[in-house]
């Protein structure tokens, strides 16, 4: 007995309705749970990266649990080491005040030297005539950010009393501070010091809608409540020895079993290759940037910190190198003295070396590392990269920026493999 055409069409209608409802529900869930996307993705990606390491340890007849435990121990030790090294380089409150005074002084001094400004800071060389309209407001904004508030000034002065010995660093900082005040005064549009925490609260309270005060503990709890998912996902996926795949394939109809198996294998290969490739590329970028900065005279703690941030942001196209360049340039502009390891690098040309070095790293990454580590299977058209990254950023913020490219890569691999396998199995 053959089913009637009307039954067939109603069946197709209900199937389509179910698919549309499923897609809408999936979209709603993704949107509603978007705060969990990044922790889940980070946990999953880390598990993917670590899977071969655990498999390697299992070859030495270690149980999977023990292998994961050893891996975690190694991670925690490495993390603690890095955090300690970085923390040692991060200044305390007094150090931040000193840094701001020094940075304000050096930025203005170098700007004046570069533009050949007169004491009134209104006349300079030809370059200044060309770019003053653009650069002066920028410098004023930077001055506003770096300038000390009256409370901070009194705190700074109490921390750095005048001493008889004029060669001390403390006196030099006092000189810087005095020069800073003079510069801010001389400039035609004097910079308004940045509001302190108390002032900021008063200024914004009128404009901004009132929110319940969030204690640091509540903020930490909110952060932990979502980020606690990451290690759970990481351990769960790393512990899995095929159960998730088997569970998924169990619900696949028999005629689609082998195509699904082949598509999953293709996806696993593509995603695994991509994640491991990006991880290695990010690690290479981070190490190269740290080495470059150390060569250019940036203290090793800062070089490691900037290298770490640069490597961590590398999955977003061009951001890793941009972070390295901006942070390196900022350091070379703000720092008081630079002690490069190479003799031809001097304080005057360190910024140029920084640009050249980062450009060479970016070139080597694009021309050598990417083809070697990522291959052509995960290659995505630059326009698709741009649109997906911007679209991800608009829709999901930082999470979208970070996960746009992996998502596009997975979809590309999925569509390519599904079309190939379904055709090979005669299902299309």
């Amino acid at each position: 007995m053959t089913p009637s055409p009307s039954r067939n069409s109603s069946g197709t209608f209900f199937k389509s309705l179910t698919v549309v409802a499923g897609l809408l529900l999936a979209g709603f869930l993704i949107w509603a749970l978007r705060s969990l996307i990044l922790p889940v993705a980070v946990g999953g990606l880390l598990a993917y990266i670590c899977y071969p390491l655990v498999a390697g340890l299992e070859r030495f007849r270690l149980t999977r649990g023990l292998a994961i435990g050893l891996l975690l121990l190694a991670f925690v030790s490495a993390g603690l080491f890095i955090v300690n090294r970085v923390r040692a380089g991060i200044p305390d409150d007094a150090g931040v005040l000193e840094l701001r005074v020094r940075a304000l002084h050096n930025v203005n001094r170098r700007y004046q030297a570069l533009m050949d400004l007169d004491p009134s800071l209104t006349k300079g060389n030809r370059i200044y005539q060309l770019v003053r309209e653009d650069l002066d407001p920028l410098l004023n904004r930077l001055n506003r950010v770096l300038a000390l508030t009256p409370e901070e000034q009194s705190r700074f002065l109490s921390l750095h009393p005048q001493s008889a010995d004029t060669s001390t660093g403390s006196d030099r900082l006092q000189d810087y501070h005095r020069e800073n005040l003079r510069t801010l005064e001389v400039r035609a549009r004097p910079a308004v010091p940045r509001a302190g925490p108390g002032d900021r609260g008063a200024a914004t309270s009128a404009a901004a809608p009132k929110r319940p005060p969030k204690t640091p503990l509540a903020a930490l709890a909110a952060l932990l409540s979502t980020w606690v998912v990451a290690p759970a996902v990481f351990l769960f996926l790393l512990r899995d020895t095929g159960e998730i795949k088997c569970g998924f394939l169990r619900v696949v109809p028999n005629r689609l079993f082998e195509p699904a198996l082949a598509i999953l294998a293709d996806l696993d290969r593509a995603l695994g290759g991509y994640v491991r490739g990006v991880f290695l590329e990010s690690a290479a970028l981070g190490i190269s940037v740290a080495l470059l900065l150390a060569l250019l005279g940036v203290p090793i703690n800062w070089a490691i910190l900037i290298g770490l941030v640069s490597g961590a942001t590398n999955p977003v196209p061009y951001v890793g190198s941009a972070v390295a360049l901006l942070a390196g340039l900022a350091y070379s502009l703000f720092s008081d003295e630079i002690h490069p390891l190479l003799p031809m690098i001097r304080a005057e040309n360190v910024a140029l070396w920084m640009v050249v070095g980062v450009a060479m790293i970016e070139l080597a990454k694009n021309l050598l590392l990417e083809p070697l580590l990522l291959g052509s299977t995960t290659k995505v058209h630059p326009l698709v990269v741009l649109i997906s990254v911007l679209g991800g950023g608009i829709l999901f913020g930082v999470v979208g920026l970070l996960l746009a490219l992996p998502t596009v890569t997975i979809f590309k691999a999925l569509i390519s493999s599904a079309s190939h396998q379904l055709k090979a199995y005669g299902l299309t």
Partner: protein
Amino acid sequence: MKSGLLRGVKKILVSRLEKTDSSDAEGVSALAAFGPVPAMAAGKRGGSLVDFLRQVTLFEELSQAELARVAQSAHERSYRDGESIYEQGTPGAALFLVRKGVVEILRRKRNGEEVSVLMLEPPASFAEQAVLGADVVRWTSARARGPVSLVALGYSDLEALGRRFPLLANKILLKLAQIMAIRLQLLLEAEFFGGEAPVGSSQNDPQP
């Protein structure tokens, strides 16, 4: 040794060899045809997947722990009577083990007519070429004869097992090579000697 390596296959193939008309144009295809489902074909009911895997020739060299690892990666599938397991001309992504029921292996002629090649019962394995990694295109079709339970092991599953336990994967692949060599020998015997072993070869224990 041969009977050990071809558990589940040999009975049907040999029983058909006795009745084979060697002048059949299809040669190998004519060695087997539809036959009554053997009484034991329903297989042993109950028992864990590890217990079942232990009976399979492919895994007979494996320890209990290794069998458990294979079981974790294996996929249990159920098929209705007449349902296709795979079709001739499609790529192979998994090997199959007959856990319950009978599986018929068919070969489609150029004119579209399908000829039965083999009948498989538990604990036979089939479509093993798929896990050898080559771009295998299946030269037969497989269909369920009555309700069938199969255990499938994908190429990717074996690859993943190999990354974690190279010795285990090596044992499986070695056994697979032996099975395929014996099958090739059986097919050659059937094709050129009508099921009689050629002079100089031992009928009971051929060397793969």
